[in-house]
């Protein structure tokens, strides 16, 4: 409720500021025209600039309040508590304060309400209201002041357009910074926890160990288990390779058919249907693997005398491949259709057949994009969790045979971090080290993709 009021007031203020700037510059321009001079920037830039000037101080006030509110009110509440309660430690004090806040905001609390609690809550709610009004008034006052100042600055020579453009540029920069900062934050937190993990386990044992047997957290720190990454990494690679062996040929051929051969009508039906495949939740693919593909493969193996387990790298990889087909086909289809028609005509006009044209002209021209799509799909295959949890058998042992169960990095992270973990022992901390490894692998793949794409660009542009 309070926030809504603030937002509405702010919008009103900004609208007013814009209108003021607009009108002021318009009248200036009208006067100047008589002397044959012109405004540097058009009125709408002046309006926007004034609005920006108003926005900055008000945002500053509101932002400061948002930052300080919690701690200021907390100090206030503690001051109002009787000494025996105020003297409580940690969680107990927190819950006492939370009770008063809940009372003040009108939500009920469990149990008896003590007198001092009631009194403190009433006092708190009064102060909260006052503070709210005060902040609103301060923000509005400052905003108006800024409006006044900004309006006085408007002149014929004021380069309002340049300033507005700069503000827009900064805004855009901030937006892209959000993504970058988030990534950095994720990496940092992974890093921190990983370092804690490596204080328990030697990095060499982790990265080059061949045995994965973390033991249980409850068995005590004496038996911290063994944390060899290799079986997991091998499982991940094997499942991803099988998945790509399924997804790449099928996806690429689908894309070629759709973009080059399919009549318009077929295309308009088939393409959306294939894209539906991409929208199926991975856990549903997991069911499919567990209930249908696994038993089928195992029966097939039995028929030809091979021992195929129904939960295995093969099952998980195949189903993951099916999941990735639309990913590859849809991206490659778009890329193939972007190859200029003139190239295709040039080849056909020389008497090349359609398949020669596709192989020798279209695919090479589309290759950078297709490689990009491929590597994106690989990244997804490596990071995919649900299908592998359900269908790969969860057996972190180094085995060559794809028909045997495996485990992957993602599955192991799930195993180690779910349940009753306290993030203190290596059993759960290893999850972060694994996450960091996964992150590094996908990062490398993406860099590789960029590199390849650039190489081909140079060759073909």
């Amino acid at each position: 409720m309070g926030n809504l009021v603030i937002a509405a007031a702010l919008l009103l203020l900004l609208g007013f500021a814009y209108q003021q700037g607009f009108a002021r510059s318009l009248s200036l321009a009208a006067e100047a025209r008589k002397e044959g001079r012109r405004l540097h920037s058009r009125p709408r830039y002046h309006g926007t600039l004034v609005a920006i000037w108003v926005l900055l101080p008000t945002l500053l006030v509101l932002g400061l309040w948002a930052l300080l509110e919690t701690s200021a009110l907390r100090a206030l509440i503690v001051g109002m508590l009787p000494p025996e309660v105020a003297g409580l430690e940690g969680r107990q004090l927190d819950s006492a304060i939370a009770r008063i806040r809940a009372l003040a905001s009108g939500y009920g609390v469990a149990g008896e309400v003590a007198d001092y609690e009631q009194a403190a809550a009433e006092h708190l709610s009064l102060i909260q209201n006052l503070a709210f009004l005060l902040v609103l008034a301060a923000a509005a006052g400052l905003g108006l002041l800024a409006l006044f100042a900004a309006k006085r600055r408007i002149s014929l020579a004021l380069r309002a357009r340049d300033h507005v453009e700069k503000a827009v540029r900064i805004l855009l920069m901030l937006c892209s910074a959000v993504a970058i900062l988030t990534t950095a934050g994720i990496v940092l937190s992974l890093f921190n926890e990983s370092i804690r993990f490596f204080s328990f386990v030697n990095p060499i044992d982790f990265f080059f160990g061949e045995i994965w047997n973390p033991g249980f957290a409850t068995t005590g720190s004496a038996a911290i288990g063994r944390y060899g990454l290799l079986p997991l990494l091998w499982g991940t690679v094997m499942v991803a390779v099988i998945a790509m062996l399924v997804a790449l040929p099928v996806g690429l051929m689908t894309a070629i058919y759709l973009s080059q051969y399919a009549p318009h009508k077929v295309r308009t039906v088939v393409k959306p249907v294939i894209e539906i495949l991409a929208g199926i939740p991975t856990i549903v693919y997991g069911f499919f693997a567990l209930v249908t593909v696994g038993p089928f493969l195992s029966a097939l193996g039995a028929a030809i005398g091979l021992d195929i387990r129904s939960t295995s790298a093969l099952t998980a990889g195949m189903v993951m491949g099916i999941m990735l087909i639309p990913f590859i086909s849809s991206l490659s289809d778009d890329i193939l259709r972007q190859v200029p028609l003139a190239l295709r005509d040039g080849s056909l006009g020389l008497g090349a057949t359609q398949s020669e044209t596709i192989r020798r002209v279209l695919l090479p021209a589309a290759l950078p994009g297709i490689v990009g799509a491929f590597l994106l799909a690989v990244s997804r295959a490596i990071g995919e969790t649900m299908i592998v949890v359900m269908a790969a058998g969860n057996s972190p042992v180094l085995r060559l045979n794809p028909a045997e169960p495996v485990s992957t990095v993602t599955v192991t992270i799930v195993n180690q971090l779910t349940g009753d973990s306290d993030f203190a022992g290596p059993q759960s901390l290893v999850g972060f080290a694994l996450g960091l490894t996964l992150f590094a692998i996908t990062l490398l793949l993406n860099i590789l993709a960029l590199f390849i794409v650039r190489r081909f660009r140079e060759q073909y542009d």
Partner: protein
Amino acid sequence: MTSLFRSSLQGVAAPPTALEAGDGYQTVRTPDPKAKPTRLSAHDVCVFYGDKQALENVSIDIPERSVSALIGPSGCGKSTFLRCLNRMNDTIEGARVTGEITLDGENLYSPQVDVVELRARIGMVFQKPNPFPKSIFENVAYGPKIHGLARSKSELEEIVVTSLKRAGLFEEVKDRLHAPGTGLSGGQQQRLCIARAIAVGPEVILMDEPCSALDPIATSIIEELIDELRENYTIIIVTHSMQQAARVSQKTAFFHLGKLIEEGPTERIFTNPRDKKTQDYITGRIG
């Protein structure tokens, strides 16, 4: 993309309505007593892009081993007609061709005809240069390779070099045959595409404004090439330059708004056009 197979069927089923669709316009024809025997012949050709008609009942005979020029204002259907002659309109979704076009008496649009082979015999240089994103060498070698014209690497090299020389490009690119063809200038790309087309050794060559991006010197090289090719090949050229049409062609056809207005010996068309529209166009009053 329309499948080649499907559109070849459309071509056969030329509905007789095509004759009536012309609502009685008459092409002005001046027969040429000195003309060589007919190689390509179009009869009542109509082209539709979807519902829109781009060509109306075009009938013309193209003599062998000579140059025929198609002229007319922009958008009148010259490229469209040219593309009918090697069935490149098949590749345009929604394009429909009716009527009959024969090469040596055989209907190009009959189902027995193999489009791929046909296009190897009737080569085309497109209006916009469209080099492949490959090296200059590979661009020219492309056709000979897929048709197996060279038995060895040195033979292939010879074909490439001769073709580049004939298109007047070799001197400029001889040190960078393995640089990308797309890195050439517009005019160089145009000559590269000409070299690419003649490397296949087609019997008929269709050229859509081959000199539109060329300077006078490169233009005269191409005109010389056309003149030389005429000894053995049948050539049809689209051009916006009256002088060029007059210089290189023996026969000229004037198109206007999808209709073939007048055709006849080049000299005759330029000195003594019989239709008013033709006269206006060549004296610069329309287009």
